[in-house]
């Protein structure tokens, strides 16, 4: 099975298709599919309408609480694992049954839930009296290739569940997708986790491995992927909060991008939508173009996606000049025929892409240009803990004037994480925000604090009165430079942001900051030995290491049963990965540890839990070029800072 890795990855959709086929075959001969609109684009990547028809789907409807009777008695609902949407479907089924009780007996109701059926869904089904009437099916679709070396599970609700609600129910879905992937590619020799959720994913991956190992033993290490890195979004919020300077990053700031398709709506951008609207009339629906952000379809996008935005228009301009030289008037009849037969379609497509990209660029310029410079400057000052007062004033003015429902909070979070906010400053901003968008959003700030995007300053005057003095140390403001200390240790803050070259991943933030994921990839790819990796990443507290090393370190055959019976309260399981501290003894005796980090092949798969952003993807490409390696990026979705903020609403 020695096919190129990218071909294997793009074929994963066949496994998804097979899984879906298996489910549909249990749902009766002829059925209606009722799909949640948020899942349509993703389903299109797995199968087309023709395929669905071949597998018994007669009519397709969008899920709508008001949906009445449909063409067929068999109904298959297709929804994400979201309790509100699930209940909505159950209510609809209940009301259909109350109108016509006989349909309860035909086994005609099925709900396909992405990516898994939670146990609480079962109990809800029972409590509504629908157990036995409605059948639930889990559909864990595989990673989808959105672009060259970019994979996504397309579960955009995962960040909210994991980090805002602190509900880890779908984490096993991530583990299962990796487990299936490794059946196709083989298991990487090295696995590392950064963060609690990532460690959990490696633990669960190991449980799947242990359970199903009897049926499938392939102990050979992967020839496709040298190392797997799993990273929690919490490990690097700054990369999400900062405004990107790359083309693809800015596209995401302005346009909505769903499942790799950009909605080129130049009249009603995300920036406009988020501002206070003083017009009473609603903007009318404008026609817009869907534009695939996929290098294999759009070679022009491949060339400009990771460029600093300042270069993009000149690239487009040079392409336009080439196009102009393709003057077909000079061609003879035969040449003309040849041109029409072979190149016309290609040229037409290219022109269309060119036009779309220029329109997108113009929109970016008109939306961002008047504040981009000041914004970037302020962000860089925040990162380096300089001019706190000026930065705060910039933010305060923004909250008082051109406040944006997501982006203003995003900047507030960045200031809070990098330089801190005093009790009064914090409350001034909260007050302005609530006046602008409504007091109903008061809870949003609590949610931001829960997910760690915002640090709540305590009211010192008040706490002195009510708490005893032994608690005082907790109440005092924290050492404000925590962020900078950590970032300096990992060399994330370039000393001269203005003259970083193309070889520094920091260009994605105008030279101000290197995303953590790029730092980690670089450390793993440039280290010769285990001990070197451990030294380079020693400041990361939630770093754990698994893979081959985990098996070598097992005391005998350590099964999950044994692990669990020796478990101490509030200890980590460490089933699929280990704390590197316990490795120090091993490292002393064998610094190379079986040549673990001479990765072969020099290919890394990075999975970011909670959404990866385009700036991080671009930064990793720089590391890839510098180290002569391949870095594949995967996540539950491609998001940006405003998506993160929106998840708190």
């Amino acid at each position, binding site marked *: *099975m020695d*096919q190129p890795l990218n*071909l*294997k990855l793009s074929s994963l959709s*066949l*496994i998804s298709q*097979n*899984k879906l086929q298996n489910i549909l075959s249990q749902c009766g001969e002829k059925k209606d599919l009722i799909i949640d609109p948020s899942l349509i684009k993703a389903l299109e990547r797995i199968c087309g309408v023709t395929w669905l028809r071949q597998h018994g789907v007669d009519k397709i409807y969008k899920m709508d609480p008001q949906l009445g009777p449909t063409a067929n008695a068999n109904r298959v609902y297709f929804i994400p694992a979201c309790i509100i949407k699930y209940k909505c479907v159950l209510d609809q089924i209940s009301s259909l049954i109350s109108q016509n009780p006989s349909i309860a007996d035909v086994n005609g109701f099925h709900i396909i839930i992405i990516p898994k059926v939670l*146990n*609480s869904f079962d*109990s809800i089904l029972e409590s509504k009296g629908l157990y036995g009437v409605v059948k639930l*099916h889990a559909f864990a679709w595989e990673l989808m290739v959105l672009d060259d070396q970019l994979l996504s599970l397309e579960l955009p609700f995962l960040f909210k569940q994991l980090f805002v*609600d602190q*509900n880890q*129910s*779908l*984490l*096993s879905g991530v583990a*299962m997708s990796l487990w299936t992937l490794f*059946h196709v590619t083989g298991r990487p020799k090295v696995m590392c986790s950064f963060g609690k959720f990532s460690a*959990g994913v490696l633990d669960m991956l190991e449980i799947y491995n242990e*359970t199903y190992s009897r049926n*499938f033993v392939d102990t050979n290490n992967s020839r496709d992927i040298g190392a797997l890195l799993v990273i929690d979004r919490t490990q690097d919020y700054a990369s999400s909060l900062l405004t990107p300077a790359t083309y693809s990053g800015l596209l995401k700031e302005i346009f909505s991008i769903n499942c790799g398709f950009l909605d080129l709506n130049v009249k009603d951008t995300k920036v406009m939508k988020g501002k206070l609207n*003083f*017009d009473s009339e609603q903007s009318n629906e404008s026609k817009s*173009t*869907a*534009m695939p952000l996929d290098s*294999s*379809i759009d070679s022009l996008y491949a060339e400009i996606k990771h460029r600093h935005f300042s270069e993009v*228009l*000149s690239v487009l*301009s040079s392409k336009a*000049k080439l196009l102009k030289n393709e003057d*077909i*008037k000079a061609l003879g009849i035969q040449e003309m025929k040849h041109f029409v037969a072979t190149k*016309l379609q290609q040229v037409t497509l290219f*022109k*269309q892409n060119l036009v779309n990209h*220029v*329109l997108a660029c113009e929109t970016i310029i008109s939306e961002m240009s*008047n504040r981009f410079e000041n914004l970037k400057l302020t962000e860089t000052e925040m990162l380096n803990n300089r001019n706190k007062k000026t930065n705060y004033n910039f933010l305060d*003015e923004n909250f008082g*004037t*051109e406040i944006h429902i997501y982006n203003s909070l995003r900047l507030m979070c960045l200031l809070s994480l990098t330089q801190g906010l005093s009790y009064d400053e914090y409350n001034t901003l909260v*007050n302005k925000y*609530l006046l*602008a968008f*409504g*007091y109903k959003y*008061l*809870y949003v700030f609590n949610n931001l604090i829960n997910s760690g995007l915002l640090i709540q300053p305590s*009211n010192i005057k008040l706490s002195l009165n*009510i708490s005893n003095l032994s608690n005082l140390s907790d109440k005092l403001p924290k050492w404000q430079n925590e962020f900078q200390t950590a970032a300096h240790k990992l060399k994330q803050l370039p000393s001269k942001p203005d003259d970083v070259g193309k070889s520094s991943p920091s260009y994605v933030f105008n030279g101000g900051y290197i995303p953590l994921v790029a730092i980690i990839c670089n450390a793993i790819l440039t280290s010769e030995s285990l001990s070197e990796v451990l030294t380079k990443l020693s400041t990361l507290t939630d770093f754990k290491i698994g893979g081959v090393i985990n098996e070598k370190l097992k005391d005998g055959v350590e099964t*999950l*049963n044994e692990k*669990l019976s020796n*478990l101490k309260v*509030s200890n980590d399981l460490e*089933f699929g990965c280990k704390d590197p501290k316990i490795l120090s003894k091993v490292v002393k005796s064998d610094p190379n540890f079986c040549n673990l980090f001479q990765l072969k092949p020099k290919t890394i798969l990075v999975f970011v839990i909670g959404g990866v952003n385009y700036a991080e993807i671009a930064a990793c490409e720089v590391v890839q070029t510098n180290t002569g390696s391949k870095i594949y990026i995967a996540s539950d979705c491609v998001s940006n800072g405003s998506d993160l903020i929106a998840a708190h609403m």
Partner: protein
Amino acid sequence: MDDDDYWNTSDTKAKAFSFDDDVLSPQEILAIGQKTYPGQKEESIFSSSSISTVKVAQIPLMSLVTPKVLDLILLAQSGKDPAQEQSQESPETVAVTLKRLVLGRRCALHVHRTMKSKTELLDGAVAIGDGNAILTVVLFLIATLNKKLVYELLSSRLIALNHYISFLQNEGKITELTDLLTMLGRSPDAAMAHFQHAVKTQGNNVDGLLRKVTNILANHFNQPGVDAHQTKMVDAYVKLLEWQKLANLPELSNRSALQCLAYTCSRHWTEGAGAAMSPLTLGQRQQISPLQFDWVVLNVHAKSGKWDILESLFTKKDWLGRSTVSSHVPAQCLLRRLSELGASSRLMAACLAKLPSADERLALALNYKVHCVVIQTYAKQKDRLALTNYKMTLNPQSEEYILAENTLRDPSIKWKN
């Protein structure tokens, strides 16, 4: 359209194409991209339907994974037991149960009746980190243990507690959630949970919200430990809802203070302080900061074209008779917005006059094309060269062109160049 015709149409010519320059302007690129070839349909350029069907290369499924592995993948997704394992009944230990939970298989929680095994189940689920397993165990404990005992277990296991809180919140079991949080001494969180529940379930129903929020303010936000500023915000919310109830306008239901202010500015501008619908009354009642107040006034009146109101509001005549701008909106920001809203150059000039630095004033005047300020500034700097160059960029016979010419001819200026 013929190629040559295209380039000679007045529309394209007016933009002065020069393909010899290094970089084309966006308009120029668009012109090339939108140029049609003979026989090509016009409308196809902006429709995307033709391109999304590029076939992706794939390996056949059977050479991707073996049939046996594929069956395994399907089995794992379904959470069913493998066929050969169904017969052999292994004893249901804590570890077996937990593993079955993680794999999504059916399991018999009810066999775990001792406190010890219940505790082990909870700790094991938390250690594995599968939220589905954690919540299942917590709900099992709730069903089989005294609530007080469960709360004790949860209070030292934050992850498990958070799963239960998230469950109660999603299920809308707000009373149970409040009881739990209060028992754990987290009354500020209980207050906020109540608040969030109320605003998410009441929609924009002013009466319902007013009743609920007033109630929550009285019963939960006055608890010790609740942040004083949060209480103040909830109090302000009640005041706004009261005002909205009084106004009784569906379009203002549960809108923000600034949105209500915008409404009063456009409909009740002339009503003085004290009148219920006066912008001044609302501004005071909601303690809207002067900056936000000015910003709303600026946007509302500019968008409805009432520049006279804005000019009389924002400009003041000083004792020399010159008009200067007085607003809480910082000058740079004001200029940017005025320009976007299409303000007159007179108002722009008055706003520019407020800037202390001449260099900054010139740069902004150039940026926003406030010609009279540019001309005056050059005259003040006695910079004939710059002014002459600037004149060339202006439309001949326009007002500003004549002003520039007259200024250049002014004998009282001693030009430095």
